[in-house]
């Protein structure tokens, strides 16, 4: 009996935390999706399925698809860039390692919006990058660097890269590089040792990197809003538009619920399919 009590008392704080800050808000968001809108940004009395039905609007599948595609590609690019970076950081001399960690973290000292705004300047139609590329004949005169899906992609990767470098570096730093020597000693090429020994060795770091990049990326709306065009809208933009523009909270909630289901569904399958837990609480995502 006392053991049971101890178990409860140990898990109670995290249970409370999750309930207050994750479970209740999520349930509230889900519930609001079934309320009618009163047209003034509030909610009317009673319950309705009208909002859910309106999600069948043909523009949503495209936006959901784009959101998933951009986020997955961002995650992939971030991990592909972060793995060699983390490997190098773990192998290099101490002084360089510290410098590189600092360089990775330093951009956080500047406001996120300011950094995205900086890209707007850099890629501006009259900016030096576009003029330089034009002068070199690398782009056609009608090529736009700003307000395209590619721009959104670029800035998404830029702003999420540090989040993927840090966990991968942390895992690589703990990795026993003698294992790679052992693999090469047994006849493996350096590449094979990298793919068959190093990558499995930092799998946890890669998993964390995927989560901490994918989930914020799915909810991003500042980046597509500032550097994207009408053709690169993400679900976050639609949610913001419904909330602030249309003052239709139930509709925004329905979209948010749709995103949550789209993210949590596959994640649940991944986590519980493996019969493991522990990473699930990290999947608490939202609109940035």
């Amino acid at each position, binding site marked *: 009996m006392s053991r049971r009590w101890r178990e409860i008392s140990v898990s109670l704080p995290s249970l409370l935390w999750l309930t207050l800050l994750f479970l209740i808000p999520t349930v509230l968001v889900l519930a609001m999706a079934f309320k009618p809108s009163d047209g003034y940004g509030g909610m009317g009395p009673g319950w309705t399925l009208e909002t859910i039905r309106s999600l069948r609007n043909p523009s949503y599948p495209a936006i959901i698809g784009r959101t998933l595609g951009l986020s997955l590609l961002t995650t992939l690019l971030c991990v592909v860039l972060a793995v060699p970076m983390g490997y190098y950081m773990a192998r290099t001399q101490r002084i360089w390692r510290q410098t590189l960690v600092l360089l990775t973290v330093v951009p956080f000292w500047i406001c996120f919006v300011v950094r995205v705004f900086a890209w707007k300047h850099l890629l501006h139609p009259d900016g030096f990058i576009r003029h330089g590329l034009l002068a070199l004949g690398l782009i056609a005169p009608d090529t736009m660097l700003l307000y395209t899906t590619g721009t959104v992609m670029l800035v998404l990767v830029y702003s999420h890269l540090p989040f993927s470098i840090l966990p991968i570096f942390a895992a690589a730093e703990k990795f*026993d590089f003698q*294992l790679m*020597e052992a693999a*090469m*000693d047994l006849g*493996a090429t350096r590449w094979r040792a990298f793919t068959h020994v190093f990558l499995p*060795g930092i799998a946890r770091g890669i998993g964390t990197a995927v989560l901490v990049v994918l989930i914020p990326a799915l909810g991003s709306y500042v980046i597509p809003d500032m550097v994207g065009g009408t053709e690169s809208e993400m679900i976050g933009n639609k949610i913001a538009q419904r909330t602030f523009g249309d003052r239709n909270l139930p509709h925004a909630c329905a979209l948010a619920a749709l995103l949550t289901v789209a993210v949590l569904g596959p994640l649940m399958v991944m986590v519980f399919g493996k019969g493991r837990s522990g990473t699930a609480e990290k999947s608490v995502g939202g609109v940035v």
Partner: protein
Amino acid sequence: MNDFLEFKNVSKRFGTVQAVDNVSFSVKRGEFFSLLGPSGCGKTTLLRLMAGFEQPDNGSILLDGQDITQIPPNQRAVNTVFQNYALFPHLTVRENIAFGLRVARRPRQEIDAAVTEMLKLIQMEDKADQRPNQISGGQKQRVAIVRALINRPRVLLLDEPLAALDLKLRQRMLLELDLIHDQVGITFLYVTHDQGEAMSLSDRIAVMQGGKIEQIGIPAEVYEAPKTSFVASFIGDTNFVDGTVTALPMPNYCRVRVEGLGEILCYNDKQKAVGDRVNLSLRPEKFHVTLEQPQEDARLNVLRGKVENIIYAGNHTRFWVHIGERRIATYHQHRRYHLDEKPIRWEDEVWVWWDADSGYMLDDYAPLLEERGITPPPETIHSANGKEQRI
């Protein structure tokens, strides 16, 4: 047949440290060859050069007549057993052992057969599907050995493979290693700082110090006939005694006057002449310590001393005897148990005697280890120039 593996004038420097200094030696086919020395002596660097993880600054390494110095590690017919085993944590025991053959893209049946055979060799068939963190240290050790053996290397490199095991397990693994060496017939290059391991396993031992090889020989040679004071003190315990040759009373023997000890007779295989300074190593177990005076014998050194300290160690007793101005460490084996034998006690006046053949003349004259900047391993007893060192 001779010189299967050859190191020729190999040097390697790391920054300001000359890790390996112009080392040349050769290993015979099928031999169990040990590199023995304290940490930092260059033995592990030699092994890494052999494995291909490091490139020598100078010199070459020949395997069966072929220069392998430039060949990368994954193409050398050489495999390594790492000190901390370096088993792949994400693979099972079976997958770890199979790694070398998988990389070599051998057919599946061949891999399965070879792995099963190896599992049988180390009697771990039941652990085949466990991961490295689920098996014991001794089991990890065995897996590491057969993982390295499965590619049928021409030379197996072992880097302090028993260092992480406890004493009993180490002793059992010693026997097992010996057995595996006999069974597979592969040349073993074994790196260790443990003289006991090296002595009990090796066909030959190279004793290293400061990036150089001090002596190569069979275990009995390096123990009984150490060339230098370093070898004498690193392998086993010894008393260092320095003196001047005063006479050559009979062929192959000389009399040596040792300050503060007296005149002693010594085997003179170095053909020293009268007036030469010599350095002797007198192993503690060569001495006899008795209360009765021994019978006269021309080849016996007999000295009188006072027992200063006694340590009973079960199979032998250690006596430290003050003779003249020096202190000599002696080990007395209990060959027979005499209940009524009068025991030797503290402060007893005793006779200390030994056969002249038992003292060994070193190549280097009296360079005390401390003066050469060498810290002797613990347990070493040496007293020379009247100074007492640690016991």
